[in-house]
């Protein structure tokens, strides 16, 4: 099975991009991430992960038009590619499988 592994942070970023209602670009993704996870994350980490995901083919990007609020600079919009969505789904399937394998009541026991 040929599959690229996704790190935990990468997976979350990918999910956030997938979950964005509006066009996803750096700032939005960063804000969403902080909101969703409640963690404090540096913007550089987000950028590095986005570019890396793009290099791996899970994301694609294109430049938008120039906007005044960014000092005339264009935004880079990210969208999840087919490969990306398949990877996410595979992960979900795997997780579900693993969840199902846990005997009933065991987690609650451990949790207490």
């Amino acid at each position, binding site marked *: 099975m040929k599959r690229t592994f996704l790190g935990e942070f990468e997976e979350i970023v990918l999910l956030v991009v997938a979950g964005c209602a509006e066009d996803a670009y750096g700032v939005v993704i960063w804000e969403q991430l902080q909101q969703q996870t409640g963690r404090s994350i540096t913007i550089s980490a987000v950028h590095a992960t986005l570019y890396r995901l793009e290099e791996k083919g899970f994301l694609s990007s294109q430049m938008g038009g120039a*906007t005044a609020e960014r000092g005339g600079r264009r935004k880079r919009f990210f969208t999840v590619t087919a490969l990306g969505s398949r990877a996410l789904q595979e992960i979900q399937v795997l997780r579900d499988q693993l969840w199902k394998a846990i005997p009933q009541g065991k987690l609650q026991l451990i949790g207490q």
Partner: protein
Amino acid sequence: MATQKEKFEPQNRLNDSFEPPRWPARLLDWFVAPHLREDLQGDLYEIFQKRAEQVGIARAKWEYTWAVLHYLTPYFFKRKPNKYPKRFLLSPDMLRNYVKIALRNLAANKAFAAINIVGLAVGLACFMLIAVFVYDELHYDTHAANARNIYRVQLLVTGNGDVAVYPHADAAVGEGMKAAFPEIKASSRLLSVSDFVKFEDKQFKEEHLAFADANLLSLFSVPFLEGSVKEALTAPNTIVVTSDLAKKYFGKQNPLGKSLAIGTQKTPYKVTGVIDKLPDNSHFHFDAFLSLSTFKIPHPTWSNVGYYTYLELKDNADARKLEAKFPQLVAKYVVPEVQQDMGISLAEAQKSVDTFRFKLQPLTDIHLHSHTKYELESNGDVQYVYIFSILAFFILLLACANFTNLSTAYAARRSREVGIRKVMGSIKKHIVFQFLIESVLLTFFAMLLAYAVIWGLLPFFNQVTDKHTTFAFFLSARMLFVLCSVSLFAGILAGIYPAFFLSSFTILTNLKGTLLSPKMQKKSLHNGLIVFQFFISTVLIISTIVVNRQLNYMQNKKLGYDKDQLLFLPDTRALAQNQVAFQQQLLQHKNVISASVSRNVPTNKTIVGTQVFPKNDTGNGTEIHTDIFNVDYDYIRTLSLTMLQGRNFSKEFATDSSGVIINEAAVKELGWNGTNPVGKTIVGSGQVEWKVIGVVKDFNYTSVKQKIAPLMLTLGNNGGGLVLKIKTNEVPSFLADLRKQWQAFTPDIPLQYHFVDEKYASLYVTEQRTQQLFTVFSLLAVIIAGLGLFALSAFVIEQRTKEIGVRKVMGASVVGIVALLSKDFLKLILVAIVMASPIGWYAMTHWLENFAYRIEIQWWVFALSGFLAVAIALLTVSFQAIKAALMNPVKSLRAE
């Protein structure tokens, strides 16, 4: 704050936005790879604006800076790889191609390659040889472990506005100084002598012997082959010999414990140690050291000279500060001695504190900076080190200029190749690199050839410089490294211009070959380099002529005495009371014109001097330093000296034993100019009085480098040497007779003699060496320049072949064409000569100032140098020009 800055903002900014901190923004702009930059900067900017509104500008700025710092990782720095395959500068295939093309080009232009390589090789070889010479000169006396802390005591005596410098001092000085100043760790003395040495039946005169204190050899870290450095010279009558001397006397026997008989008294000295030959770069080379403790000096004095005194200072001692304390010692020791000696008042003697100065000369400075009359060996001169360094540098530069000039000229032919290379995808860097590789390759060949040149020149070089550099020295890793880096440097220096020149054109210009047209050639560079080369050459020619003339002048100067067929026997001391008898015996010989018993002959190194003052009507005049010659009645006649006033010594006057003949210089210095000195009185040390009976014309009894010093001739009966004036065409048979006579008087001691004119010539060995080196290197420099001009003119003329053909068809004469072709070059040479003359004049005037008696630089020197430069240029250019002019126009016009 933000609003103030508004007018500097870019136009597409909104008025109500904030400005992120400048430096982090710049850092980000510079650091992040271009393909990531825009959206990344945009995101940061957006966040900054939001935060500025939320938490205020100051905090936002801080956050922005903090965020920027997080981007400083390799990931963001890494530039996006080029879509197209990278053109690798050092790809092995292309390197192979460059080398192959370079070799083919060399093979195609053999003459060009040969001239280029030979010129550069000669330049490199000269550079290396001179560099070795300079290196050697700069590293004298470094073998002593504590060389940096060792100093030689110098004595400076001021008198009559002149300062006499002695490199030695009196017997008590060294130890006295050591006792007085704790910063002196050790002191040691050395006394140079020459004497007869005998072992069994072997007896020779040894010229290089020295009496030395016991610690001298350890001070100079002289390694012992046998014996112990600590004890070797402590006992009286002991001797340490070099292995060469040991072999000479003892053969294969073990020298330790054996006795050598030294001097005419045959005093036995026991060998207590054997040392190796002293290193070449030492300022003395003695064959044996005798223990100075042999002499019991009951009352060592301070005010005389003769002992070379070395002091070792402690590590942190300051020599200058120490020197400043010496006058205390002069007041304490020298003044009473002077007072007693000269019979003068204490106040008068106190003056010595000012006139008697001890100085410290660093050991490592002796070879290049000490030029007194009394050096142990003839020293080098720091000036020559400078001159030769400059010469080496210029020769290398000359060779490089040649190389650049020729390479540029010939590279223009390869314009099309460059064009094709560019079409096939070479970028500028590749072309530059290719041409640099070619020139480095050429320099590499030149380097190999340079080694051959060095190998060939080395014996001559060693002979001229009196050094013992072996070829193996040049093969040592260090020298290889130096030569390689110099070659590489020269290659790049020479190749960089052609490389950039050729690669700088557009493909079309390259392909059209318009580079070849004379208009496109960079005339100014070629011309500049030719002017430069001939400028250097002319300066060197001028210098060579002046140096040669000055040396000739010195050798042939009227010395005031006749040095031809003048023979000196230094050892008649051995005859003791029989000296006069021997002299009389010799006078019987038909070839002997005159003979005089005297130790003092011109060119002799050891000269005795003293302080005297004139006795005038009103009291004593100022004290002066004068040399003293002890002579007999026949001295003046034997040397053919000219009497100006008064008379020679004569047996008819019994009072002549206290009479003195002085030279003109003495008359002047004693202040007797314009009066008749005959009959006046001179007072000297111990209140001895001499009556002047005559004045002799000045004669040069030392080298012409020095001014003639005041001299007194007095009658002496102890002799010690014999001066002989002979007249014969058969010198060998006379010498045989002389030997026979000598042996009749003293069968025991070998005869020693030398001709004064030969000795005189040997005074100028250093100058002769300089002259030879200078002449050879100037010649080589001129050859390099000539080679360059030859090849360049060939190239330029070849380009004008068609023009010449047309001119000939139209009726131009051969002479006319040659003149036309030579004219351009001659103009440049003339510019070079005009520039070189003042520089040459300045440099040589400076050099001549070293000599007390020197030539004037006359205008014809410049004329001759200019003429030579023009002649060399004409010869090289006209050869090509005539060849071109004689060519059949059919041939030159047929092409194409």
